[in-house]
């Protein structure tokens, strides 16, 4: 009988097999010098490395066949991701000589490719199954718990990134709070200003072009250029206007970072507010007015509830965008995970860069998925259309 080859499976297999051939980890005498690459077979003690390598290879090749049920594929891919992660931890523990605090074992290209191959397989399998909202919410929570358990178990403590973490766990907690404050604070500000602005340009169509035009221009200014403009302006204000410095205005630090993120958030919030409101069926609006609702009543009782899915979509865009963008705040002393990224870049310590980058990516992913689920939960009923 003929076996059909899955094209996506073939792609994942090529990526993953390349990962098995390329170095799995890098062993470095200290955190800055370039190190020696070790393949999965070499990085782990003798039978273990070969067993894991061969099993992963077999899974990748078997994944090329069409005949796998999606749920089985999902489970296998998830187990493979966990296996690769634990193999990294084991390799780090085995390779680091005892009592040596300088040597580092970092993830290398092979590990990243293996993780990429299996997470792609995971995502591919998941997209083929239609799962209900509660199950997907449970899956998200489960994934977070799993990560917490693996990190908490100490299995990865030998890995370079975790060693960097161990050296700065207090700082990490502070920067994490700072990062969240930047992302959520700028989102809150953008909603506070952007929602009324969106409603205002909905009410007076003549204002739409100029307002959206200005916000569009703001959106296109590169973040570094924006800081370049703001540093002298806010610096001058802080120095010359009484009370400004006490109120937190400063050329560098948290204030300009917050302002920049806020400005970037305005366009998505304002334009989605407008889209959501104009998307409401005119007959519904007409009926609301004809029944004797006042303008504020129409807005609060009819338009905003019906525009809610589009507004939540805006919050999703802004939150994911700002979690990523907040890294740049590290450059001007604004705090957040960017602090580690830029420190690491300055010291050519890639492990420190990862300590900033990995949690940022994880945060953005979790925020994005969680809000997607929320959008779906509220958008389940038909929007303002001919119900």
């Amino acid at each position, binding site marked *: 009988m003929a076996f059909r080859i899955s094209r996506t499976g073939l792609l994942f297999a090529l990526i993953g097999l390349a990962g098995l051939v390329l170095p799995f980890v890098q062993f470095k005498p200290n955190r800055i010098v370039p190190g020696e690459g070790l393949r999965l077979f070499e990085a782990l003690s003798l039978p273990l490395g070969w067993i894991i390598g061969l099993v992963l290879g077999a899974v990748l090749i078997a994944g090329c066949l069409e005949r796998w049920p999606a749920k089985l594929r999902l489970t296998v891919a998830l187990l493979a991701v966990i296996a690769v992660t634990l193999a990294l931890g084991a390799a780090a523990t085995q390779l680091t000589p005892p009592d040596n605090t300088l040597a580092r074992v970092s993830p290398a290209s092979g590990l990243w490719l293996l993780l990429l191959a299996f997470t792609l397989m995971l995502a591919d399998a998941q997209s083929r199954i239609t799962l209900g909202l509660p199950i997907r919410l449970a899956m998200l929570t489960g994934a977070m718990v799993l990560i917490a358990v693996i990190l908490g178990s100490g299995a990865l403590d030998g890995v370079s990134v975790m060693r960097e973490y161990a050296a700065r766990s207090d700082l990490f907690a502070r920067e994490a709070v700072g990062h969240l404050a930047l992302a959520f604070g700028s989102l809150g500000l953008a909603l506070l200003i952007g929602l009324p602005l969106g409603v205002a340009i909905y009410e007076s169509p003549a204002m739409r072009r100029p307002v959206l035009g200005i916000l569009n221009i703001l959106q296109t200014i590169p973040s570094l250029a924006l800081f370049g403009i703001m540093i002298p302006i806010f610096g001058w204000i802080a120095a010359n206007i009484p009370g400004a410095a006490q109120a937190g205005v400063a050329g560098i630090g948290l204030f300009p970072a917050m302002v920049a993120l806020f400005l970037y958030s305005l366009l998505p919030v304002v334009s989605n507010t407008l889209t959501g409101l104009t998307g409401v*069926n005119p*007959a*519904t609006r*007409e*009926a*609301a*007015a*004809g*029944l*004797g*609702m*006042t303008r504020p*009543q129409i807005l609060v009782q*009819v338009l905003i*509830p*019906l525009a809610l899915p589009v507004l939540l979509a805006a919050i999703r865009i802004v939150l994911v965008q700002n979690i990523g963008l907040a890294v740049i705040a590290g450059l001007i002393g604004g705090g957040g995970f960017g602090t580690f990224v830029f420190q690491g870049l300055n010291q050519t310590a890639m492990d420190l860069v990862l300590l900033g980058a990995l949690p940022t990516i994880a945060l953005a992913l979790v925020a994005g998925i969680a809000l997607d689920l929320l959008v779906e939960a509220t958008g389940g*009923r*038909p*929007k*303002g*259309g*001919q*119900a």
Partner: protein
Amino acid sequence: MIEIQNLTRIYGTTAVVKDVSLTVETGQIAALVGTSGSGKTTLLRMINRLVEPSAGRVLIDGKDTAEIEPHLLRRQIGYAIQGHGLFPHRTVAQNISTVPRLLGWTQDQHRARVDELLELFQMEPADFRDRMPHELSGGQQQRVGVARALAARPDLLLMDEPFGALDPVIRAKAQQDLRDIQRQLGTTLIIVTHDMEEAVTLGDRIAVMDKGELLQYGPPSEILTTPATSFVSDLIGTGDRPFRLLSLTPVAEIIAEGQAEGAEIPREASLRDALAECLWSGRDRLPVEGGGIVTLDSLRAQAAPTARAAE
């Protein structure tokens, strides 16, 4: 009584409604008929001030509507539109109780009113109260739309093509139900339609509009027998004229003495129904329920404008 006096609406340089005056007596149905762009909808929307008149005024029971806050005015006037405009995020009960809640009725009051209206429109309250609009058929949505318009017991009800989205069978039933409910409640009703058939079926008075002007305003029989302009006769359509005329009178009004064979026809059936029955069953006289007959000759006499004029 609704008095529309010299009402005009100008957009830019075009007059969409030009100097229209008409009066609707309390408890009557006035149908505004015209092609699209005739200004009939704008005229209707000026009555509840969704559109502000450029000139002229509207008096409801002698009171000038310009003196009432627009949203307070609208809460006193029922309003139902094509495509019903139900709030898709609210249940049937919440939709119907919109105006009572705006008026600050107690929960007990508006709940009782919702059930009363659902029963009036032959929808089982326990079954329909908590449904969402998208869980209803087109005909049910339309009925909920009218129930919502009637919720606060308005003396005046405005309807803009309320049956436009319904298929012909449901539409005829909905028209009949509306007519019955209107008679029962004594509500004054002004309805906009592009369909002369609907206007003749429902209207005590028909106002024909074209290019913003009121061409003719009178009872259906007058519009049918003596159209004021060629536009009005075009709108009536020469082919259907006699049948529309017959549809205005019930059988009860032309009963003659005598005996006839075959199935009886109800007293409240229209002459049009009687003619159709004669032609279909090949009879030239029909027995009427409760005694008497109706003859093909008498039907023929009623179908011509000259006969009516002679009466």
